[in-house]
């Protein structure tokens, strides 16, 4: 039986963070990453670039040399089919076994696929979550001219934008009444939608697909509203849910997400979880929930890795952050952008030309979230203010109106800690 001190199931961002975390405390012991994906470790956040023609090596954001340097070996293209947690071992497809002392489950999320009539046996129906999806879409580009994307969230709008760049006629169907509902407030959502409409993308909101039409080849989709959209391909991008595939039928607490404590440890002492598979603490509302976001996965990976290697490194919780990187006008957001109740104060500003918009959401004088469009330099200062819960009552108007957000408006004591002392990122490094 193959053995490794640390075994990581998964090879993407949470796993990369974990390697970093483990090596902070343990420079020597063996680390093994296992992934069913043949490409191994790559950046899922850049898949759109691959569809647009970048080589697959471009996606390997840490590169093979990095893993060599960090002393990490890997099994790529190998699927884990069984967890024998009481014996501290895994079973791979084909029956091979792998033993571990510490295990990290960074198995990610799986795309949520709604049951749609007529979806079976059609070739040009895609998800957009992992490399194999992106490769299928890229290889099929010549086979469709019109495409319908289901879901106007982050991935839905990103793939819509990408295919529109590639001269496809793209329609987006969204059940909700606006685009990017998780990341943006209603007004900025409207701005994002018009930016995409300007590029030629059509949106069908408050609507859903009843049936995918066509015998073998797709001819169109029929919407609940009665409209029919002719198309040759359909992409579902409704979101991902924690991947419970190999976790069910084990002693692990998995309930719409892997349960982990503040050290990213599961209910089994030498088994940890990080990334899209877990329910993570959201610092904006104190709730534990799946938060499939890049920086959170990386940070959880670091925390899990550090604790696996004997550190005492609590997870301070994650702050939802979004950058709509594909749009012509940059849009950044973090935290609560649409207040859930009347207990919040909302400040917003917009220039008449529509090139700048910003909204701040406050509670008790403290920043809880923001959206900024068109002017983004220094936006991270707002992110920092959400995390540190500084009282911003005195300078909130500056934060709202000044296009470049600077440290000059911060209380001097706060600033001086940064300038002359340690970095105050909240981690106990």
């Amino acid at each position, binding site marked *: 039986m193959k053995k490794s001190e640390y075994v990581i199931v998964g090879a993407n961002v949470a796993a990369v*963070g974990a390697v970093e975390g483990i090596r902070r405390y343990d420079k020597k012991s063996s680390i093994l990453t296992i992934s069913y994906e043949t490409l191994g470790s790559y*950046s899922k*956040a*850049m898949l759109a*670039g691959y569809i647009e023609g970048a080589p697959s090596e471009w996606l390997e*954001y*840490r*590169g093979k040399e990095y893993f060599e340097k960090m002393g990490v070996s890997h099994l790529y293209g190998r699927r884990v089919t069984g967890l024998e947690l009481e014996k501290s071992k895994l079973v791979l497809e084909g029956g091979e076994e792998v033993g571990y002392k510490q295990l990290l489950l960074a198995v990610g999320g799986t795309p949520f696929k709604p049951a749609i009539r007529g979806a079976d046996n059609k070739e040009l129906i895609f998800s957009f979550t992992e490399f194999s999806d992106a490769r299928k879409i890229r290889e099929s580009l010549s086979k469709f001219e019109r495409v319908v994307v289901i879901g106007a969230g982050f991935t839905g709008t990103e793939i819509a934008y990408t295919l529109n760049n590639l001269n496809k006629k793209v329609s987006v169907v969204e059940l909700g009444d606006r685009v990017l509902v998780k990341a943006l407030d209603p007004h900025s959502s409207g701005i994002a939608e018009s930016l995409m409409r300007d590029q030629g993308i059509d949106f069908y909101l408050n609507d859903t697909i009843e049936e995918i039409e066509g015998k073998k080849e797709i001819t169109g989709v029929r919407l609940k509203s009665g409209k029919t959209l002719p198309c040759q391909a359909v992409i579902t991008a409704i979101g991902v849910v924690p991947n419970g595939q190999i976790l069910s039928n084990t002693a692990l607490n998995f309930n719409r997400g892997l349960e982990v404590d503040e050290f990213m440890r599961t209910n089994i002492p030498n088994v940890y979880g990080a990334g899209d598979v877990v329910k993570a603490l959201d610092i904006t509302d104190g709730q534990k929930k799946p938060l499939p976001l*890049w*920086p959170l996965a*990386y*940070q959880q990976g*670091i925390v899990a890795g550090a604790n696996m290697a004997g550190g005492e490194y609590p997870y301070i919780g994650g702050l939802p*952050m979004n*950058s709509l*990187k594909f749009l012509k006008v*940059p849009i*950044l957001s*973090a935290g609560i952008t649409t207040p859930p109740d009347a207990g919040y104060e909302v400040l917003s500003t917009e220039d008449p030309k529509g090139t700048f918009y910003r909204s701040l959401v406050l509670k008790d004088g403290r920043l809880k979230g923001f959206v900024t469009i068109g002017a*983004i*330099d*220094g*936006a*991270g*200062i707002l*992110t*920092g*203010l959400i*995390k*540190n819960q500084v009282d911003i009552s005195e300078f909130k108007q500056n934060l709202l109106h000044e296009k*470049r*957000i*600077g*440290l*000059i*408006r911060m209380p*001097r004591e706060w*600033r*001086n800690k*940064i*300038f*002359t*002392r*340690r*970095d*105050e*990122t909240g*981690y*106990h*490094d």
Partner: protein
Amino acid sequence: MKKVVIVEDFCIACYNCEVACIATHSKSEEPVKAYKRENLRGRSNTIVEVNSPVAFSAMCRHCTHPWCLDTCISGAIQRLDNGIVYLDEERCVGCWGCVLGCPYGAAHPNLKGEEKHAFKCDLCVDRLEAGLKPACVEACPNKALLYDETLGEAEGAYSR
């Protein structure tokens, strides 16, 4: 780790640090050519902030736990062996994750022209290797920027 310590009481808002930063990171390494021919206006990695009479020049803190690195989807931001948090502009895809993540506003977006990438202070890694101080520190006429151990780390308060 030695970093640029910012002493705001001494800053006279002369902007010499910005000019020196742009020049040292230009091809010509000459301020006027860098501004006029290489179109590097606004590309200083350190930014002078003024709310008279308060002023200071602020740049990357090369954090022990860099949030810009956590948010980087392309691998452009990496920590070098000497502790410097380095952004490789060639590899940057302009996702603005670092701009959103850095609590000091020290990762900046280059939104001009076709080149969409972020930029930030590299602590003048090439100059350090040549035994020199960071360009902004050398250019500062009033010791408002010092190349030194940061206080907390010098005290050993948070080192592990």
